[in-house]
């Protein structure tokens, strides 16, 4: 069975005069597709809910493990020694009377699952109800894969950075039985919260007696990984059995000695009447798994989990017109191709009109900034507005050049312009285009022969210089926006909906003016809690008073800036921005980036001097000002991982560093995490101990199959406090420039001739 196919959307009319013969009526008839449409949510992804792409066939226990109540591969409360499909992003919600967990997990490596969980824990004592919103991180590693008689073995730590309500570690083994893996048997040992009853002395005590005791968790501010607790203290066993009863129904039975409640709440009536948990899970195919359970001998619980995989797009293809074809030049006459055309009167106008017409035929996804030609070489400057894969923009540019430039032009050069900057110069021989366009894997062949270098290494051809209309660009927009605040200790979800007005003007010469204003129409952000105010000895509340910004403004200027971009040397770009840089700060921001066109590493230096803005979001500033700045290293680690390291001074005047690691996908998906450590001590930082978070980027074209560079996603921070706070200024150089350097062009090269 093959996956459902998309109904083709309206194919854009390419424009231009493509009528090649007049003797026929229009012969193209496109009828409604015969295929099943994609399910509705694929057309309207909103945050957490997504689809399992791929076949609707239910898969075996081994290929498609059950998602347990904590978002990891497992049974009910307990884990199993299995892994999700590589790169799966899974959302799980689970709850019963007073206890609710929402988990986002990611299969970051084929055998490593990580997760972030937000829990609402309400415990009833006789007199009071105690409600706690808890954030926790888990890691799960399937170290050994089932083979022959040997079971799979996994080791994991639950809630290893957090307040410790759910903390525990485990080692677990799972074995599948039956010709179709219908039965899975699991057994394991757990420590910490996994070992509440029927415990025994830690077997690891034979290695070192210190394993036999588990130090009390210093609950403190949470947010620290209490590594000295791992695998220590008494242990207990757990076990389970899972049976694939029908194609869609699984039954689970679990023996667990765990108690996921903090010890400090020992007065709380969280009663466990039985060590046996029972559950059944129903597979909804693309819509996920739903489960009903009978836990602890006294409670009924429900769970729902759904996954999306970045390598399985919602639309398995591209909904767009065919590209401009390439026709090889006729064989050259004995004395070579004619070169006199450069001097012909009107050559510049003719060429410019031809290129503009070709860009229009191509769908208007790119605009002409300039064209410099002589008889042998042409340099085309374009602005890429719509192609999400940069190599595809390059390929379309090469097609346009092959279709419009006279035969004597052998060397094609393409420069993509972003914010007035020449990002890089890509040089491809026309003969290579003609020869490799239709070769099997011709895209890779062409990119291997292409040269990518800084735009200033060689100068442009000078015989004919043609400017496009694009020299100055003005864009504006009026659109609704949604602003979310998550994990406020008293309100897990706060939101504002309103209208955003934006405008952007590129003057030319590298000057860019940009402004966005927000007018909230309705929402609950004004109810945000002010987090603890100014602590004595603590950092200045550069971020934790965000609630005051929400409360004091009806509409606000998000940013209002004038920037200047320049390239001062081959591979060295600069930016200078001043104005109202972000919602909370105004001032000056300057940056230098060194990013050689072929390099996997780039270095940057940024220095800012900013004043804290008034809470009302207008033009005023407050007394607080600070100089911040960072030295940054951007590293492509290979194997689809990228890292960024920033060292410097943050908004509260603290010194420290941030490390961010992202898993990237060639289609534009990015999933990552970051952590910042500064000289603000964990106590001074307050709850959470240090700044950390998860970043997620989802390209829109992955959902729609159309040509768009828009992306969705954002940063999820368990807490937004004042240590390690960085200025949020738009238009940083690395994001603008790195797309068109060689590493990214090679990553997206599959789409070169698309």
């Amino acid at each position: 069975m093959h996956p459902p196919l998309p109904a083709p959307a309206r194919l854009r009319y390419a424009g231009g005069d493509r009528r090649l013969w007049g003797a026929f009526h229009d012969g193209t008839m496109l009828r409604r597709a015969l295929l099943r449409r994609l399910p509705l949510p694929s057309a309207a992804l909103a945050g957490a809910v997504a689809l399992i792409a791929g076949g609707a066939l239910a898969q075996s226990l081994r290929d498609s493990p059950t998602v347990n109540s904590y978002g990891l591969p497992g049974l009910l409360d307990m884990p199993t020694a299995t892994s999700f499909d590589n790169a799966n992003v899974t959302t799980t919600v689970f709850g019963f009377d007073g206890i609710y967990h929402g988990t986002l997990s990611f299969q970051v490596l084929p055998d490593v699952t990580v997760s972030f969980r937000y829990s609402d824990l309400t415990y009833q004592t006789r007199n009071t109800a105690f409600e706690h919103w808890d954030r926790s991180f888990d890691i799960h590693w399937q170290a050994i894969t089932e083979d022959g008689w040997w079971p799979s073995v996994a080791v994991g730590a639950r809630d290893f950075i957090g307040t410790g309500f759910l903390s525990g570690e485990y080692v677990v083994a799972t074995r599948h039985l039956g010709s179709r893996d219908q039965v899975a048997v699991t057994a394991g040992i757990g420590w910490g919260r996994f070992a509440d009853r029927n415990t025994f002395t830690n077997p690891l005590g034979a290695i070192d007696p210190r394993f036999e005791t588990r130090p009390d968790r210093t609950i403190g501010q949470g947010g620290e990984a209490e590594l000295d607790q791992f695998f220590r203290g008494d242990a207990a066993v757990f076990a389970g059995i899972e049976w694939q009863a029908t194609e869609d129904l699984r039954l689970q039975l679990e023996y667990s000695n765990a108690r996921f409640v903090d010890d400090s709440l020992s007065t709380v009536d969280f009663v466990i009447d039985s060590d046996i948990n029972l559950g059944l899970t129903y597979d909804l195919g693309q819509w996920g798994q739903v489960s009903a359970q009978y836990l602890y001998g006294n409670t009924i619980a429900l769970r729902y989990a759904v996954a999306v995989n970045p390598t399985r797009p919602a639309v398995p293809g591209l909904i767009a017109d065919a590209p401009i074809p390439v026709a090889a030049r006729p064989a050259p006459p004995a004395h070579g191709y004619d070169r006199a055309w450069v001097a012909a009167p009107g050559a510049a106008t003719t060429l410019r009109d031809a290129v503009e017409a070709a860009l229009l035929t191509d769908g208007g996804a790119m605009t002409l900034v300039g064209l410099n030609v002589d008889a042998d070489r042409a340099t085309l400057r374009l602005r890429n507005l719509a192609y999400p894969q940069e190599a595809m923009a390059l390929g379309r540019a090469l097609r346009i050049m092959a279709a419009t430039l006279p035969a004597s032009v052998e060397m094609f050069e393409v420069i993509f312009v972003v914010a007035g900057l020449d990002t890089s110069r890509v040089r491809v021989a026309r003969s290579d285009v003609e020869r490799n366009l239709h070769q099997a894997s011709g895209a890779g062949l062409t990119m291997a022969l292409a040269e990518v270098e800084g735009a200033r290494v060689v100068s442009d051809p000078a015989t004919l210089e043609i400017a496009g209309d694009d020299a100055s660009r003005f864009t504006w927009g009026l659109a609704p926006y949604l602003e979310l605040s998550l994990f406020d200790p008293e309100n897990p979800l706060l939101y504002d909906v309103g209208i955003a007005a934006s405008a952007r003007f590129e003057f030319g010469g590298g000057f860019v003016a940009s402004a966005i204003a927000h007018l909230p129409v309705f929402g609950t952000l004004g109810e945000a809690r002010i987090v603890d105010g100014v602590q004595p000895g603590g950092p200045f509340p550069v971020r934790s008073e965000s609630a005051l910004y929400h409360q004091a403004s009806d509409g606000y200027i998000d940013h209002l800036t004038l920037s200047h971009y320049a390239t001062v040397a081959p591979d060295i770009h600069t930016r200078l921005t001043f104005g109202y840089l972000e919602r909370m700060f105004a001032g000056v921001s300057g940056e230098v980036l060194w990013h050689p066109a072929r390099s996997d590493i780039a270095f940057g230096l940024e220095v800012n001097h900013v004043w804290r803005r008034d809470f009302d979001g207008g033009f005023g500033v407050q007394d607080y000002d600070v100089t911040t700045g960072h030295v940054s290293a951007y590293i492509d680690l290979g194997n689809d991982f990228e890292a960024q390291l920033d060292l410097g001074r943050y908004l509260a005047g603290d010194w420290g560093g941030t490390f961010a690691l992202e898993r990237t996908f060639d289609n534009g998906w990015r999933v990552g995490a970051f952590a910042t450590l500064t000289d603000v001590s964990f106590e001074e930082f307050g709850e959470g101990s240090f700044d950390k978070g998860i970043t997620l980027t989802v390209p829109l074209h992955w959902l729609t199959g159309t040509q768009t560079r828009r992306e969705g996603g954002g940063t999820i921070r368990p807490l937004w406090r004042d240590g390690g706070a960085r200025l949020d200024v738009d238009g940083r150089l690395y994001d603008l420039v790195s797309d068109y350097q060689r590493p990214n062009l090679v990553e997206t090269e599959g789409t070169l001739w698309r």
Partner: protein
Amino acid sequence: MITASLRAPALLAALTLSLSGCIGSQGRDLPDLGTLRDTFGLGGAETLGPSALDLARATTPQSMAALGSDLLIVEVPALGLATRMVPVGTTGGVTSWQDDAGRHEVALSQSGVLRSTRGMVADLMSSDTGMTEAALAARRPGNVARVMVHLDGELRDSPERHLCEIARQGDATLTLAGRSYATAIFRETCLAEDDSAYVNRYWIDADGMIRQSLQWISPEIGEVRMARFSP
């Protein structure tokens, strides 16, 4: 993997057309409808939908003379597409054919073996069909291998090597735009890397030109059906 697309409405329309054709046949200027039904399939099971038949019916010697170049009638059942294409550019020994609005493209070798497609959502990005072309040119049955390149979910080139067997399947006489071609029919049965199979069929005339074919594009889209008219 073949996407068979027998649809009741299409079959009904084809029958209706054929009946009306019988009643209103104009004689020499219209192609023989019986041949047209056979033109795009085996027997009656895989007939063209009415729109592609209409295109074929309207392709007369006069219109071909006016066009002055070869013409393809192309049908992709999975997309509900039926269109005419003309050659728009040749490079590297491969000719691109596009429809009037430039929405869809097939790239064919000089003899007519499919090399790539564009605008068909899940396109065949590129391919190496040298062995198939050589076997068809020599009219020699046997085993060949072809390389088929599609994009995976991360938009990376994903080349696959498919092993195929070419067999002779008889002869047929085709009438296209009033010209008659004596063709040899070849069937190419290929095995994809996921163990699914697909079949390509070629009707090759005396000059080695593929006059009619059904060729596989991708698992999602299935096959493309083409008929080639010459002035």
